[in-house]
């Protein structure tokens, strides 16, 4: 009796420690980034061009670049991903073809991001001749994000009760009317959540943009989709390894801005999800 209780207490301790170990890195990273990053934040830092070979001034073009790339990624990946998911979930039967597509999507999600970068370089930059550009970078990020969006959308679609589809069919609605009328409206919060999480990951990636769009130093704003841009993840890499004598302050503040952007996107996603949970009553 006493033995089993002690055993339980040890097991509990181990689990608590494991949980602690999981959240510790998050807390430490957040703490360090905030501690060193906040002092360097200022309106000028956020809205000015870099100066003195990036050792002074702001990071405005990198912020704009990351925003533009995220929007570009969204434009290419959201419609494609959602349509593919609707097709797979609502139209396609269960046969070897759809099984193959499913397996491809799972594998696509497991490919290292540097491979996407090289793929984008080969296909968009070189073969299609877009050059290193916003277009090529957005397309590359979009392909990387697609599996996330497809998977999240399919989960959201699957969570809509089958009954609703049956009722809709039984009232004479076609498949598409059913999807539009009852399935999508009830799946949209889940789709949004998954999509934003996917995009926030794309916003923080370095490898896919390395050869496809990111500029080392380009202190002006892009004028067309065929321009290069600076982007926050790559800028951080440049500041910390390629430019001598950059102050710690600038490095940490840049990291803080990127983490902040990703964090805000994740909070929006979490907010949508929790609001939806409360409303859901079936």
């Amino acid at each position, binding site marked *: 009796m006493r033995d089993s209780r002690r055993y339980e207490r040890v097991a509990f301790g181990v689990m608590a420690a494991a949980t602690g170990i999981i959240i510790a890195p998050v807390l430490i990273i957040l703490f360090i980034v905030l501690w060193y990053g906040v002092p360097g934040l200022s309106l000028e830092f956020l809205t000015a061009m870099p100066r003195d070979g990036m050792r002074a001034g702001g990071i405005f073009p990198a912020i704009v670049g990351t925003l533009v790339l995220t929007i570009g990624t969204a434009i290419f990946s959201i419609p494609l991903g959602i349509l593919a998911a609707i097709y797979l979930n609502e139209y396609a039967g269960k046969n070897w073809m759809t099984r193959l597509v499913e397996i491809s999507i799972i594998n696509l999600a497991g490919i290292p991001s540097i491979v996407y970068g090289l793929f984008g370089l080969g296909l968009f930059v070189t073969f299609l001749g877009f050059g290193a550009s916003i277009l090529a970078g957005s397309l590359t990020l979009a392909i990387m994000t697609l599996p996330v969006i497809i998977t999240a959308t399919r989960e959201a679609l699957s969570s809509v009760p089958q009954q*609703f589809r*049956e009722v809709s069919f039984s009232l004479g609605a*076609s498949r598409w009317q059913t999807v539009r009328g009852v399935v999508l409206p009830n799946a949209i919060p889940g789709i949004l959540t998954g999509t934003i999480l996917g995009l926030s990951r794309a916003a923080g990636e370095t490898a896919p943009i390395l050869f496809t769009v990111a500029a080392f130093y380009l202190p002006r704003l892009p004028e067309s989709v065929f321009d290069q841009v600076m982007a926050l993840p790559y800028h951080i890499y440049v500041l910390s390894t390629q430019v001598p004598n950059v102050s710690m302050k600038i490095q940490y503040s840049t990291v803080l801005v990127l983490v902040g952007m990703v964090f805000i996107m994740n909070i929006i996603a979490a907010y949508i999800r929790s609001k939806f949970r409360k*409303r859901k009553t079936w």
Partner: protein
Amino acid sequence: MIIEKPKIKVENLDLYYGSFQALKKVTISIEEKKITSIIGPSGCGKSTLLRVFNRMNDLVEGIRIEGLVEIDGENIYAKDTNMVALRKKVGMVFQRPNPFPLSIYDNVIYGPRVHGERNRKKLDEIVEKSLRAVLLFDELKDKLDRSALSLSLESQQRLCISRLLAVQPDVILLDEPCSALDPMATLKIEELLQVLKNDYTILIVTHNMQQAARASDNTFYMLLGEMIEYGPTEQVFTNPKDKRTEDYITGRFG
């Protein structure tokens, strides 16, 4: 049982789920503007038979159907069957009340909207008429924009029936429509069915013997996918021809 000018006619219907035969040589004619109840033990194929009439079974993969099914003299399994028209004509109410998570108003007009009705005034009329038919209008006329999920289960089931009436069907299929309701609510839904049968042909699947005895004109008893007995409800319950029917309705099995 001989029925002149049946609304629905089924002859030698075989239905297979893959290699499993769920319906065996079912032959039955359904009287127009009457309530026909389908009874039988769990798994005997009641829902399967019901879903033959609006071809909801088509959604099941690996299903095969042989035999003749006619509604108003038209073979509904013919190649050129207009599915939209069929499902408008033959509507279905499900076991659990399942209004969409939309407003009461939007639930009722879901069907008409799908079929292209956009005129606000027409839609208002449809809502009023459909809710009146299920005796909900007076209670709900000022709350039409409330969520349908805020209603009681009984009202939800009524709403589901009115959502169906809004597409102006001829035939209403009900699959154990009261199994989620309490006895009082069940009685009220049965009353409603008595009113509706003036305008609609009604088929109801039920596990509840009293319900079948009380609420239906004709009763169809099935066992393991086969028709055992079919006749006027009164006769089936008081003077069954088949021993197995008697055993079932007296509760000796099932």
